[in-house]
């Protein structure tokens, strides 16, 4: 690598070389490296995000050419990430695993207003309900962008969820104004992970989504299954032995009841059972004269 670096020193300025080396050094110090989209994030907010990440991940922004060079310089598979370095991006390094990184970045995203000329990252929906806006020309603005709006009960109401722009379409000035008036913030602003590389494997976002609830239910199913196996196979553990004791007792009691065994513990139940039976039989008897007074209606 050093021979190669020296050769590059001749072709690019010293400061660029130093920057590439610094980025490469940073990338090498982490187990996972990702490319994040930072399009539209104001620099001050980017500073905040960088600070919030402190301790779990490090974000590095530079000219894309230098980021690509750094990725190539580290080699080690990271060059697979160069294809994601387009537009406004940064490199992120972390020691947590790619799934955790993705979860964390998703969780840190915040809603933001969308401006005219921007492309909708997802369908933009104006939800059903009272806009809280007094009757006036605004109802016309709503209708003109495609919202199912009407004046009702003294205010402007949206009668049904209205999709006013689909993913990928450009936001018009009118729409931007309406959204702004309604306080709708359709964008999720944050570091948008494009890809991450860890331990020789490249992950894209759709591979990194986790259904935590499903894992939780898997755990419960696993515990229940093990519990069942332990009891059913009669292999006692401290977790299951209580149930096994109760099972054994239940079996003994069932037997004692079925066989009418005169066991002091069971006799009260036998008396109850006899009572239930005599009542059940009495209930089948239509002739009241045949019944004791206590059961006659």
């Amino acid at each position, binding site marked *: 690598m050093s021979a190669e670096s020296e050769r590059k020193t001749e072709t690019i300025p010293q400061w660029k070389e130093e920057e590439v080396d610094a980025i490469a050094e940073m990338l090498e110090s982490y187990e996972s490296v990702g490319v994040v989209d930072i399009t539209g994030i104001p620099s001050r907010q980017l500073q905040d995000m960088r600070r919030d990440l402190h301790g779990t991940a490090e974000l590095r922004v530079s000219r894309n050419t230098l980021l690509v060079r750094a990725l190539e310089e580290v080699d080690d598979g990271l060059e697979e990430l160069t294809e994601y370095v387009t537009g406004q991006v940064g490199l992120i390094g972390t020691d947590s695993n790619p799934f955790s990184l993705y979860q964390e970045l998703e969780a840190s995203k915040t809603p933001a207003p969308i401006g005219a000329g921007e492309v909708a990252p997802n369908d933009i929906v104006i939800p059903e309900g009272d806009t809280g806006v007094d009757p006036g020309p605004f109802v016309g603005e709503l209708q003109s962008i495609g919202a199912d709006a009407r004046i009702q009960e003294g205010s402007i109401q949206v009668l049904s969820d209205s999709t006013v722009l689909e993913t990928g379409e450009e936001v018009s000035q009118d729409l931007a104004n309406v959204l702004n008036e309604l306080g709708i913030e359709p964008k999720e602003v944050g570091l948008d992970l494009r890809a991450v590389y860890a331990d020789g494997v490249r992950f894209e976002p759709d591979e990194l989504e986790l259904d935590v609830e499903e894992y939780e239910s898997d755990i419960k199913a696993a515990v229940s299954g093990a519990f069942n196996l332990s009891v059913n196979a009669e292999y006692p553990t401290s977790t299951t032995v209580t149930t096994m004791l109760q099972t054994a007792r239940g079996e003994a009691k069932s037997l004692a*009841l079925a066989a009418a065994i005169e066991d002091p513990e069971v006799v009260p139940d036998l008396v*109850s*059972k*006899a*009572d*239930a*039976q*005599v*009542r*059940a*039989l*009495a*209930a*089948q*008897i*239509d*002739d009241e*004269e*045949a*019944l*004791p007074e*206590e*059961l006659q209606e």
Partner: protein
Amino acid sequence: MEYVYAALILNESGEEINEDNLTDVLDAAGVDVEESRVKALVAALEDVDIEEAVEEAAAAPVAAGGAAGG
């Protein structure tokens, strides 16, 4: 309920549930037997499947209890 219990004992011993047998059992238990009730019970049980009624009570005593109580 003693009359009905007497019928249940006869049912288990396999003896016929008739007036004589019921009266014998109740007599032995010191019950002051009323002939008309014995007669009525024998007649009433003629159309009842005792086995079934008793098994139902053992299997679902909740329902049985509910029926009796209602």
